[in-house]
């Protein structure tokens, strides 16, 4: 854990970037708490969800379905479907999560942002530092936001007015973009994104993103390493 602290002290830019994402997510958490309560859920429900589930999109989906009188089983299944992608994330960043109790904590803080921050780092030490710093900080900020939002209720303003709904895709995009310099990855992403966008209007949330994985077939069809271009050149 000490090396994580040292890495963050040395890499001010990384620390600042993570802090920015934490502030943005805290505000979204604020609105999540407020929305859940204003839709008729008890004050403790959004707080419990945020600690136990800790997955923004699934939490919004769950609250929306429960608040509209939906079947709890359907709400759970819809939330789970949105979260299946973590299986792939876990295999990809599993090396930074650690073992024993660390693996339990590290797995729980696995969200899109932590994975994206980890994948954007150039070496193993920074991957680990970025993953853990982002994970622990986001968990803390998100939950503080939710507690305040649920307590303050409808007094909290709409995050869309602040443009925060555009911030989430922008965060992931900025972190993913460097990886797209690899032609195979870029091609897989183009195919995957096309599939996701084409199917999203017709399918249950979560499925379009999973179907995007078909884009990886493109990567399978190409030679084993990105060095193929260098060989050609």
């Amino acid at each position: 854990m000490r090396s994580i602290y040292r890495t963050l002290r040395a890499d001010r830019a990384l620390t600042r970037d993570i802090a920015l994402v934490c502030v943005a997510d805290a505000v979204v958490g604020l609105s999540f708490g407020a929305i859940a309560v204003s839709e008729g859920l008890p004050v403790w429900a959004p707080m419990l969800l945020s600690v136990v589930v800790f997955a923004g999109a699934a939490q919004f989906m769950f609250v929306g379905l429960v608040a509209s009188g939906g079947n709890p089983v359907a709400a759970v299944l819809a939330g789970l479907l949105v979260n299946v992608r973590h299986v792939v994330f876990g295999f990809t960043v599993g090396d930074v999560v650690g073992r024993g109790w660390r693996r339990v904590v590290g797995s729980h803080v696995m969200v899109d942002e932590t994975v994206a921050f980890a994948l954007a780092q150039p070496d193993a030490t920074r991957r680990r530092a970025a993953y853990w710093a982002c994970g622990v900080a986001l968990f803390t900020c998100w939950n503080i936001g939710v507690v305040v939002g649920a307590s303050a209720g409808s007094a909290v303003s709409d995050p869309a007015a602040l443009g925060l709904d555009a911030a989430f895709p922008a965060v992931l995009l900025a972190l993913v973009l460097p990886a797209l310099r690899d032609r195979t990855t870029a091609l897989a992403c183009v195919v995957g994104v096309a599939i996701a966008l084409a199917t999203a209007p017709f399918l249950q949330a979560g499925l379009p993103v999973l179907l995007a994985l078909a884009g990886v077939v493109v990567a399978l069809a190409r030679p084993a390493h990105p060095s193929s271009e260098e060989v050609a050149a």
Partner: protein
Amino acid sequence: MTMSATALVAAVFVLGAGTFAFRYAGPMLRDRVTLSPRVEQLLGVSAIVLLAALVATSAVLDGREFAGVAKPAGVAVGALLAWRRAPFVLVVLAAAATAALLRLVGVP
């Protein structure tokens, strides 16, 4: 809301347990099997594809419907800046500011 408190707590914990299982599976199974560099590479590509699909769907859609103009426009400004290798903070703030300003002047 018609659900009882007990049912709600149970539902939250089932969702939490299932989500945790998804998250824990990768780190746990990675230890038991040795992955070839080729598989590692494909996993890396898979994670990036998932994130890219999340970016695209969350930028353009709100659930199953078109999200309006302000959000995609904000993300597009962020994308342009990211492509020009602008600092992360600028990318994120410009995306949010663009969407917020467009809404302020009445663009949905």
